[in-house]
């Protein structure tokens, strides 16, 4: 087997013959692979890897957060989605952030009001009971071991730990388990989390109900209340994850599935629908024409996102209109090849319909061909910074994902789920799944996923080449044109041309985690090989057999 290159940014596809796990930390990959090797399926392995990420990559996801799971069930030949996005507490009011005035953003991100009712354990439990094969205690075990024995932290952890130091100091104090003697961790130091180990053991022993109705629930409510929040025990007890039908799209003859609202799968499909009509191959990868057209398309797609996305249980999202080919053609036709537009108005649709049927990423493919693609998050790095006393886990700040303005589709409201940018994908070729993909990265998620898909389908890149290739991002804010954010590897000549057309440019690092940390699995049935691609913008890695 080829050794992983010394330069983490050099494209490298992990190889397996039957199965593969890719995730944002090697210990999570090991946990998933161990479950697969002992006979567990993709769902079991994905849950074990997720628990382990809570211990090994605690700043990005964990039981205090929520997410989305996309599953391909090989025997039934169908895709299903599990949504375990956080919900707003019952006492949530649409104007509760707006009325905080200049302190609004602080309340939305680092206070008790920022914390949504976590859905992670409910989602994993739903998936495990319905599609998994292993007991909860077995899946928790590797995470307990990591938390107890500790792990050596690397540069990525330390950089993020430092950036979020103020958040941790504010809500967890110098005694936080996520600080080393009150200071951010330095590379090479050991992070141990005995509190988390105890919490996970307790959940393994007493079941997920312990989190939603037991002692842990009380600790959560106490911690949230102490920081000005409104979550009650009833909110936790009422939480339910749901299984829903996925959304289906198609790009260049490849059908794919993704998650429905409140996730952003609908906007990934819309963007790919627009791109599909353009001659991107003749423009060239990351050429001025390519970046210009995709950026302009993103302007319109974000206008649609701001205008329509919300919790489909409470607002009507015009999914059919947004996904229609005429809508995509209107946007594609509106983009001018030689100049930027002054505004990006959202689409207008007739009768709004219901969604059909219905931030770390990891993927697992098992030997039977089942696939699990999970995008999960606690929102900002280190979430709200609030750790319920003695539990060792971080609570999310996903209430920040609500539009703070009242009377918007995504305004806060009782039991509502905030709109999310997450959008895991499973794509098919010749009737069989061939690509599973997802990424963290906030609003950059679906634009990054679209670029990776185009890299693979249009530019014939290998999976990890497609993941590591330079990225860019653009969004419209109201009708005002923002800068295109680009990784510094995009050549100066391309940037100059974009400026000539009228774009503003914001240059990011060469491999900037701003653009996410995608993980993917590509199944090459012709060669009988399963490839794993893991993003070097974070600590992504993979392993197969």
């Amino acid at each position, binding site marked *: 087997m080829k050794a992983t290159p010394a330069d983490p940014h050099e494209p490298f596809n992990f190889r397996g013959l039957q199965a593969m796990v890719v995730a944002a930390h090697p210990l999570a990959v090991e946990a998933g692979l161990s479950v697969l090797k002992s006979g567990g399926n993709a769902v079991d392995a994905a849950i074990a890897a997720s628990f382990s990420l809570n211990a090994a990559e605690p700043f990005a996801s964990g039981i205090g957060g929520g997410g989305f799971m996309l599953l391909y069930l090989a025997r039934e030949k169908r895709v299903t989605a599990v949504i375990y996005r956080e919900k707003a507490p019952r006492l949530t009011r649409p104007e509760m952030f707006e009325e905080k005035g200049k302190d609004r953003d602080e309340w939305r991100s680092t206070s008790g009001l920022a914390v949504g009712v976590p859905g992670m354990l409910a989602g994993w439990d739903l998936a495990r009971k319905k599609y998994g094969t292993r007991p909860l205690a077995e899946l928790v075990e590797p995470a307990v071991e990591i938390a107890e024995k500790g792990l050596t932290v690397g*540069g990525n952890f*330390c*950089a993020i730990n*430092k*950036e*979020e*130091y*103020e958040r941790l*100091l504010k809500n967890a104090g*110098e005694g936080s388990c996520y600080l080393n*003697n*009150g*200071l*951010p961790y*330095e590379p090479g130091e050991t992070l141990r989390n005995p509190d988390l180990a105890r919490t996970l053991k307790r959940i393994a022993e007493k079941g997920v109900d312990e989190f939603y109705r037991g002692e842990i629930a009380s600790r959560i409510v106490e911690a949230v209340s102490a920081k000005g929040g409104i979550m009650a025990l009833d909110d936790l007890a009422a939480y339910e994850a749901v299984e829903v039908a996925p959304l289906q799209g198609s790009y260049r003859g490849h059908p794919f599935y993704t998650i429905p609202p409140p996730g952003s799968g609908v906007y990934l499909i819309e963007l790919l629908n627009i791109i599909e009509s353009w001659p991107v191959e003749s423009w060239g990868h990351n050429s001025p024409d390519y970046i210009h057209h995709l950026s302009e398309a993103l302007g319109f797609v974000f206008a649609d996102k701001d205008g329509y996305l919300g919790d489909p249980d409470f607002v009507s999202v015009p999914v059919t209109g947004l996904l229609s080919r005429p809508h995509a053609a209107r946007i594609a036709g509106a983009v001018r090849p030689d100049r930027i537009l002054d505004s990006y108005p959202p689409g207008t649709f007739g009768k709004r319909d219901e969604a059909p049927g219905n931030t770390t990423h990891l993927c697992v493919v098992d030997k039977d061909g089942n696939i699990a693609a999970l995008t999960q998050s606690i929102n900002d790095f280190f979430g709200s910074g609030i750790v319920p006393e003695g539990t060792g886990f971080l609570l999310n700040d996903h209430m920040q994902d609500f539009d703070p303005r009242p009377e918007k589709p995504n305004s806060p409201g009782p039991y509502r789920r905030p709109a999310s940018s997450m959008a895991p994908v499973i794509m098919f070729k010749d009737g069989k799944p061939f690509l599973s993909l997802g990424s963290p990265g906030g609003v950059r998620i679906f634009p990054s996923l679209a670029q990776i898909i185009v890299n693979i389908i249009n530019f014939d890149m290998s999976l990890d080449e497609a993941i590591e290739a330079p990225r860019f991002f653009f969004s419209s804010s109201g009708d005002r044109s923002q800068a295109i954010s680009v990784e510094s590897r995009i050549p100066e000549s391309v940037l100059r041309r974009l400026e000539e057309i009228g774009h503003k440019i914001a240059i*990011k690092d060469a491999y900037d985690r701003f653009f996410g940390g995608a993980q993917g699995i590509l199944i090459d049935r012709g060669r009988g090989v399963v490839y794993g691609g893991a993003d070097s913008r974070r600590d992504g890695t993979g392993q197969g057999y």
Partner: protein
Amino acid sequence: MRKFSWTVAMVFIVILAAQLNAAQATELISLFQQPLLMTSAGQNAELQIAGILAKRAGLTYAISKFAAPQELRGVKTLVLVLGASMKGLGAAGLDIAEEKGRVTSLVEACRKNQIPILCLHLGGEARRGQQTDEFVLACLPSAAVAVVVKSGNTDKLFSRICGEKNIPLIEIEKAADCLGPLKKLFKS
């Protein structure tokens, strides 16, 4: 009296700095007076680390993310924590030019009011780069002393500027090690 102390201190620094290497520079005991005002040059997260270390050193200090010259009233030392954070600048709604304007106005006010500046760079290699270097070049030449995490000085930028300006430079292994110099450098 304040003016006199500062003049004596400056003479002390200049004489020593011409001859001192980094290890000897740790002998700069009680050079600075309290209270101190701490701000970052570049909206970095290390400002909070410096604040915690100042607390542990028992110093009388105030932290101000957006410190302006008028906040220097009654301040005996300005601590500038160098390093540009795009995240921090974004959160503050500032661009590099605006932040540089704020910081240089502080440096200028310190010069006018003879308030000594202690420059810290606690972010190591990860907090180096073109943007950080702009702040280093703008602030470091005005420092009385600099304390730098060693991995942030592998290209010897800090050594070069400090050498040229006769500024004592104290190199430390990691941010937490700044506690020692802070205890020594300030008069209790």
